């Protein structure tokens, strides 16, 4: 940026900051900021304006780094992005207002461009930092969801249970199938019980996925029992004309485990 502009800003730093603080008070009235204690808020405002002005006289890399560490801290405590964008818009308004009064017309255009570029750069970096942190959170949540999605639990030797909760789409069905087959090999299961108590809707697609999984289970050498079929699920299945006749179904997990024990030649007896 041209030294004359930097000089201009420096000379009026105090004034600009005062004006900006006034401006920013009014623009952030309505946002989530109101929940933040007064002293922390004004301290952050000071810090923010310092960081912005500092970007003028340090090297671009260092400016970036400072902005990053400042923003990261605020992202961490959940400061809204709109605070920064509105704050920067306000800052630009303040500067241009000030320049309008103090510079010649021919100079004004180039100055305007310079300031525009400067502020835009900061805005871009801020948005990048924020979206980066959001994407990170989103990925972590996706991973957590995936982990919770289809666990295979060995309950007795050779008997495992896979409880399914929530709707099943194609991607999840694939995951279920993989977990199921890997788990069977790992636990050496002979019987797997797929519990669909927590599946809200069984339509043709979901049924198709379950049938496929059951057939794949048979191929790797185990048996699949579908349990947790609620009355309304039974009704839908029959009304849709889905044929689940090829593999055993039971109404509850308990009955499923009983028949699983039967298949593996075991039984639970009461001790005397």
């Amino acid at each position, binding site marked *: 940026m041209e030294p004359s502009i930097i000089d201009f800003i420096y000379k009026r730093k105090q004034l600009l900051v005062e004006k900006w603080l006034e401006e920013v008070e009014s623009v952030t009235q309505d946002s989530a900021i109101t929940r933040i204690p007064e002293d922390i808020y004004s301290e952050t405002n000071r810090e923010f304006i310092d960081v912005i002005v500092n970007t003028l006289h340090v090297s671009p890399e260092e400016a970036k780094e400072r902005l990053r560490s400042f923003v990261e801290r605020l992202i961490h405590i959940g400061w809204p992005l709109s605070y920064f964008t509105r704050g920067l818009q306000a800052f630009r308004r303040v500067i241009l207002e000030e320049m309008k009064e103090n510079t010649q017309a021919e100079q004004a255009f180039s100055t305007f461009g310079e300031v525009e570029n400067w502020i835009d750069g900061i805005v871009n970096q801020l948005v990048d930092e924020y979206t980066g942190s959001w994407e990170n959170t989103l990925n972590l949540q996706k991973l957590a969801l995936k982990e919770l999605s289809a666990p295979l639990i060995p309950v007795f030797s050779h008997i495992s249970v896979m409880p399914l909760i929530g709707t099943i789409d194609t991607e999840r069905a694939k995951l279920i*199938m*993989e977990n199921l*087959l*890997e788990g*069977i*090999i790992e636990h*050496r*299961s*002979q019987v797997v019980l797929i519990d669909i108590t927590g599946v809200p809707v069984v339509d043709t697609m979901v049924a198709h996925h379950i049938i*496929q999984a059951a*057939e*794949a*289970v*048979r*191929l*790797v*050498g*185990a048996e699949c029992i579908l349990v947790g079929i609620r009355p309304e699920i039974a009704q839908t299945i029959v009304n849709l004309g889905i044929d689940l006749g090829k593999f055993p179904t039971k109404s509850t997990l308990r009955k499923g485990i009983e028949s699983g024990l039967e298949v593996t030649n075991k039984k639970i007896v009461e001790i005397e």
Partner: protein
Amino acid sequence: MRVPILKLHNYLLISVQVELDDQTALQFQEDLLSKIHKEGSTGVVIDLTSVEMIDSFIAKVLGEVVEMSNLMGAKVVLTGIQPAVAITLIDMGIKLEEVPTALDLEQGLEKLQQELEG
């Protein structure tokens, strides 16, 4: 390349350790049937643990081998089908419905014994 066929009492054990191509599969079919004929075996276990890929032709041949062996009075159990293989087969719509399966060789032999006794 031939697939070795081992005899154990009344059973034949086959562990497929090579990638099955069309020629090998057909050769195997022929070898197995003549071995069943020669030994008068009553049970066959085909172990597929080390097979990583089965295409539709091989699947068809395997299905036919099982059916043919049954005709000759030998029960066949397929064991050790890998998850990836199972998924591919299901995706291709090959269900091998008439073929008994087991997790590994041990359970396969148990299953044979059950079926032959029962």
